[in-house]
């Protein structure tokens, strides 16, 4: 049926919620076993190693996207963090004044254009 995108999204969201509810219902009917929290499963699964081999269970959040940050875009991030967002007011000022210069240049070019055309 042809709908406008907003209504279509709302209907599809309704379908999402409805299907999720139905799936949950089917799941709770089909699954008869209770949640098992026996001793065997209490610790995280570390391929057979005991938890004590690790100093911490979780990963520090800054290593979460190591591959994305250091693998893919190391140069980009180096530029963004060390050069651009250096925290030094004057280095920010360079970027800002370039932008101000750009806006002034647009204004100047426009004015020159108009005046040359004899406005």
């Amino acid at each position, binding site marked *: 049926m042809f709908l406008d*995108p*907003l*209504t279509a*999204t*709302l209907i*599809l*969201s309704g379908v*999402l919620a409805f299907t999720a509810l139905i799936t949950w219902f089917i799941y709770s009917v089909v699954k008869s076993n209770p949640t098992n929290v026996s001793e065997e499963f209490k610790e995280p699964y570390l391929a057979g190693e005991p938890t004590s081999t690790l100093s*911490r*269970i*979780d990963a*520090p*959040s*800054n290593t*979460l*996207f190591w591959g*994305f*940050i250091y693998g893919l*875009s190391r140069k*980009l*991030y180096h530029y*963004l*963090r060390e050069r651009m*967002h250096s*925290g030094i*007011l004057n280095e*920010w*000022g360079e*970027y*800002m004044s*370039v*932008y*101000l210069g*750009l*806006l*002034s240049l*647009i*204004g*100047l*070019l*426009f*004015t020159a*254009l*108009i*005046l040359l055309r004899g*406005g």
Partner: protein
Amino acid sequence: MIGLNSVGVLVPSLVGFAFILPLLGKLIKNVKFFHIYAALASLWAAILATYNAYLVFTAGTQVYPFGGWPPPLGIAYELDKLNALLGMVTALVMLAITIYSAWYLKDYEGVAYYYTLLLGLEVGLIGCLYTGDAFNLFVMLEVLSISAYALVGFYRSKPEAVEAAIKYGMFGAVATTLYFVGLVFIYATFGTLNMADLAFKLTFYVYYPVPNPFSGTFFGNPYVASAVALALALWAFTYKSAAFPNHFWLPDAHPEAPTPVSAALSGLVVNVGVYAIVRFLYTIFGPSAFVVQLRDAVLIALLVLGIASGLIGALMMVVQEDIKRLLAYSTISHIGLVLVGVAIGTSSTLNQNSLAYVLGLAGGIYHMVNHTLGKALLFLVSGILIALAGGSRKLDDIGGVGRRYPLVSLALFLGVFQLLGVPPFGGFFSKLLIYSAYMEAGMPYVSLMVILISAISLLGYVKLIYASVFKVGSPKVEQTTKVSLPTAIVLALGIACLVTGLATTYITSMMFDVVGSFATPQGVYDYWQSFFNTLLNLASGVMR
């Protein structure tokens, strides 16, 4: 003849509420009084702003000339649907923030000054939005800025806070001064600073050149004046709205402020910059103004800047280790998206495809509202998490406090979904409008950039959710901290996020109305028409 009305009374009464506070602070020592006082003042503002919005949406544009002076001579507030709507959202979110402050500062002694500044911030915000006078916008921008600088440096013995405040304040002062210089050029050439009057004169300049004392000189050339004024004003407004490359102050300033203030700064103050950009580029230097080529060039520059800030904000989110700093970069990213939305109105788009024009602007304004709700919510949640984790803002120290507070986590999820823009949250629909606008305008690569920005920012939000809800840490949970009041507030904001999505058909048509009131020739006509009506009424009163 022009008595007190709700449009005119809101800002002055808030000024009164704000400036009596230091005096009361000397007299009354009970901290609770100030919490209640500030909440009541905010409630007053919220009721009035909502009533004003109701008035504008039912009865059309409202003009309030202060002191009964006819508008181009005196200052006037002019409310069309755009600023009425934004004013209502601002006042309501400020109400939530003020109530939240009562919890946040429950052990703090000097609350009188805090609330003076917070109410001053609200005065600045609503004043900036309501005013119909370009110079009054400058004054209100300064009121807003001074409150904001002071609130950023509120913890004045903390080196980082003072550093952030001076970094923000130093260039902020430059920005507002440059805007003032731009206004001088406008006044010299057009002889007026009233926005509606300017819109009128700029539209009809080609047909009826206005003579001015400097006609024929460089100084009095309207093209020169428009170019200078637009360049300087735009620089100042992009500074306030933190668009790349004027965004540097934001990730320093917003996290260092007290958390409720961060929510106000990130959710509301940046909106004022965008609002001013929109007002200048669509109402004053509107599509029918005589400086069309200049306007097109500026809009294309804004589009590029919007995409750049979106990308940089999203990329920088991924590497943050501080929860509030992560949210601050997310603000930059979203303001970029809003700018992408409102930068659609080049003359070629308008002439070839007015549907794209309306869609893009509606998407931009809608996204502004959505971002306000989502970002205020997330900052307030971050305040709760930080308090529970013993005061550290590091993502690692927060270490999954959220898993012990399911309602707070629920609010966090709602806010993240709003900002990530998944259906059926409001953030999705505003992005949908922006996508469709650029597809309609035959620029699908812009839509591609928007989806790239969204996809990269997914990483940042995953990091946020992971660190605050799922992480297995051993955080120092402050058992004594009661969080029922702030939890109720963030849940209310979360519900608001859902409602902006589920009621989207109404809200979208409302946004189209809003766009019609400030960006279409008819809307601009109405804008100066109501200005002239007020002028004529007052003038006939004087004659009598």
